[in-house]
């Protein structure tokens, strides 16, 4: 019996919306794959691009960045600043040949436990099909 590949997914979420959305999914007993590791930060505006790089360095197969919907940011505009940053950061990843399909972005509010469940389900399934992020993991292997 061959073990099924279980992707490691790192989710950077904001404290005010997506973290509470994930919490709501839990209290509502909505099941979602246990492949996701949730890291809570104050705001999507706080999520430095180096954190995404770091996740891949440490063996993540996919990364999710999620926060409040536009207009809902606890700090008024953190998510707007983040959105701009990700527009350009995706281009840099693409230029380097880093698989942009492994970097996901979402707006998930505190009321969207259901959406959290769906998004995590989709990302897990997609990453499972793509397989481990061997290219980046080889970099780390070489570093040992």
């Amino acid at each position, binding site marked *: 019996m061959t073990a099924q590949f279980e992707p490691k997914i790192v989710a950077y979420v904001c404290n005010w919306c997506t973290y509470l959305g994930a919490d709501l999914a839990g209290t509502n007993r909505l099941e979602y794959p246990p492949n996701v590791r949730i890291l809570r930060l104050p705001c999507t505006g706080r999520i430095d691009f*180096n954190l995404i790089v770091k996740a891949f360095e440490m063996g993540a197969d996919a990364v999710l960045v999620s926060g409040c919907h536009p207009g809902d940011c606890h700090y008024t505009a953190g998510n*707007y600043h983040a959105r701009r*940053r990700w527009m*350009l950061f995706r281009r*840099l990843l693409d*230029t380097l040949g880093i698989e*942009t399909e492994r970097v996901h*972005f979402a*707006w998930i509010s505190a009321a969207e436990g259901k959406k959290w469940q769906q998004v995590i389900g989709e990302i897990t399934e997609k990453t499972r099909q793509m397989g481990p992020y061997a290219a980046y993991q080889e*970099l780390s292997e070489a570093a040992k």
Partner: protein
Amino acid sequence: MTEPGAMTQRLRETCRRLLEEGKVQVVIGWGGAGRLASPTQAESPAPLSFPTQAEPHAPLSGTPAPRPVFITRAEDAEKLEWNDRCFANLTVYLTRKEVKALGKAAVVVKGCDERSLVVLEKESQIERGSLHAIGMVCEGVGTPREAKCAGCEVRVPRFADETIGEAEGAAASATAVASRLDGLMAKSPAERWAFWTAEFARCVKCYACRQVCPLCYCERCIADKNRPVAIETSASARGNFAWHITRAFHLAARCIGCGECSRACPAGIPLGLLNQSLAQATEEDFGYRPGMDPKAEPVFGNWSPADKEDFIR
């Protein structure tokens, strides 16, 4: 058209006058025989060879390019030079403590270097009023010309306090060349990954790309912070990717494309391609070109509800 020799004379006179009148305490210009010319000026075999199959390291030519000089006495104005090998973007020195300590500075700029003055002022790193900019009308640098000189729109400096050279016949030269970037982006992501893996394999993390960049002025670079270590310090494959991603992205929507990073790289890594790609995206998405319009709002630090979000669920 003014001959380069005549422009050098005028530059020296200007420098002498500024120092004699006490308008500035130091003139930052190009002069003397310094380091060898741009790596793209290929002639003789490379003095160093690196294990690469992607792009052989472009050898240094035998023609010395004037190096940066700091003139503090009027009689030293003779050391200044102007020719088509004045590659260096001298604005990098304006934010350095040691240079600031010399007093009010005059800096000699080409039209392209001047763009970094605009960005530095926007980012409150320099006070334009306490700085004297000497603009040089430029026909392009390098033989053959550097890639950035094709389609140059800023041959005549626009904001300099005084400009040397004739603006006549200074029309932009043709269109930009189909760049190396287009070739890179036409490849598949896996091929691009392989390209950069091979290029970065030569990186020794000397950080010349950082030191030479006029817009990398942080007093303490994130790469030097060790509590915690944000960027892996070793020159391993992983550490090199971490560094080059950081360097490129910290210049996103700020880089003015002077190309000094590529020129300074002792391993011949075409770092400027990453910046060019980001500059292209910045223009496509925001219509912003750093350092072109002093009135334009920078991309980062601002936002618009209309920003596209087709990549967000």
